[in-house]
């Protein structure tokens, strides 16, 4: 329920998102959500030797969507693509110190965009 307020970590990431911004020279990008439905996330990757060297995001969405995006990039940064592919929405929620029940779907936004970006990268480089 909404009355379960956001964790401090969520608020902190919302107010000072890590890795926010676009990346014109990205190696790949991935999307999730639909702006017509109120949330949309794009994740940009810079990959070197199968490792996510740099990562950025642009998001249109609610508090949870912003925090999720920020946390997803934090968790993915420095990981190998294989490791990053194993990141689940639960991992993200946990790292955020939990999300209100009606916001849990937002964590899927992060996982999906990240997976999409990695798959796009792999498709391009194979």
């Amino acid at each position, binding site marked *: 329920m*909404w009355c379960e307020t956001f964790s401090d970590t969520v*608020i902190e990431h*919302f*107010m000072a*998102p890590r890795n*926010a*911004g*676009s990346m014109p020279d990205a190696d790949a990008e991935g999307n999730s959500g639909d*702006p*017509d*439905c*109120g*949330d*949309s*996330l*794009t994740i940009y990757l810079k990959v070197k030797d199968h490792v996510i060297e740099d990562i950025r*995001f*642009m*998001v*249109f*969405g*609610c*508090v949870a*969507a*912003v925090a999720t995006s920020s946390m997803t990039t934090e968790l993915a940064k420095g990981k190998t693509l294989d490791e990053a592919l194993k990141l689940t929405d639960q991992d993200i929620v946990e790292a955020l110190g939990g999300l209100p029940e*009606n916001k849990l779907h937002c964590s899927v936004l992060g996982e999906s965009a990240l997976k999409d970006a990695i798959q796009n990268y792999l498709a391009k480089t194979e």
Partner: protein
Amino acid sequence: MKKRVYADNAATTRLSRPALDAMMPYLTSEYGNPSALHTMGREAKLALERARNQTASVLGAVPEEIYFTSGGTEADNWAVKAAAELGKNKGRHIISTQIEHHAILNPLLCLEAQGFEVTYLGVDAQGRISLKALRDAIRKDTILISVMAANNEIGTIQPIAKIGKLAKEHKILFHVDAVQAIGHIPLDIQSAGIDMLSLAAHKFGGPKGAGALYVRKGISLPSQIQGGGQERNLRSGTENVAGIVGMAAALEYRNARMGSHMEKVLLLRNRLIEGLLRIPNARLTGDLLNRLPGIASFLFEGVEGESMVMMLDLHGICASSGSACASNGHESSHVLKAIGIPRQLSHSSLRLSLNEDNTDEDVDHILEVLPSVVARLRAMSPVWNGSRENY
């Protein structure tokens, strides 16, 4: 302490001092049940009837036309369903609008499921219905026209008196959801030809949990809740004496100061609108002239509404996005859709609603904070193509 600015008065208001003062005796020593015969019961009953007189006199009605309810939603449900029940042998067609509150739309949906037919009038880009469209929609079997006096999301005021005239000409019951209007703009039940009217105390400085339905004398409306026979047998249940007394006091207080309050609020609101429209790609929604004095409603392209509300909240500003009631989900606003806002853009709405408690400093604070909130959110927005500077 951080400054707090409450700019969500269309969602609910602070209990006004006169209302609280009027309520206190009934929350302490005067606790009798209005149905009881003894002194304490009679005192409570007197308080109730005084409140009915006050309410009636503000509305230009007689006391017998006022029925107390638990709020605006109950009054709306009652009006719509009871009018359908009352008229079902005459016809089963109802006319309403696409921008009503859910307290009207959802009961209408129930009626549709029961075989009633509802025409939802569209509105123009400002949120006004067309009288011609209304006239065209009227049929032989039309039994009810229900139109809100003023919209809660965009503040647009409907031409109620003209609608009332049309309804009267065709002998159709006319209900008005005046939850946002009562205590905010003058509304004369008699000259507007209104047959039923809903109001909610907490929108004009009264308590939550009290409302009323005005029902013109001579309309024998079916009862809403059955039991001990309170409210002339139409709405049973031990009366919320303190709440009702508070509602009447708030209404009387507001009404007596309507002119000066409106003037003050209009000045504040206009300064707010002027200031915020300087933000690039900001857009006012609703009608600039036919508009509730307190409501400033916007679209800020590229920014999602809830994140705006939350970032403003973290700066001490209480605002809302879309209607308060629908903002828990990711549903897009039916009102913005009706005025032709594309779906994506409709997620970018922000409503600031002021009342006479607000100050010049409140407006200053909003004007200081909001542009940078919009800028920060746009800076990371994938759907924003404009400048990413800080305003």
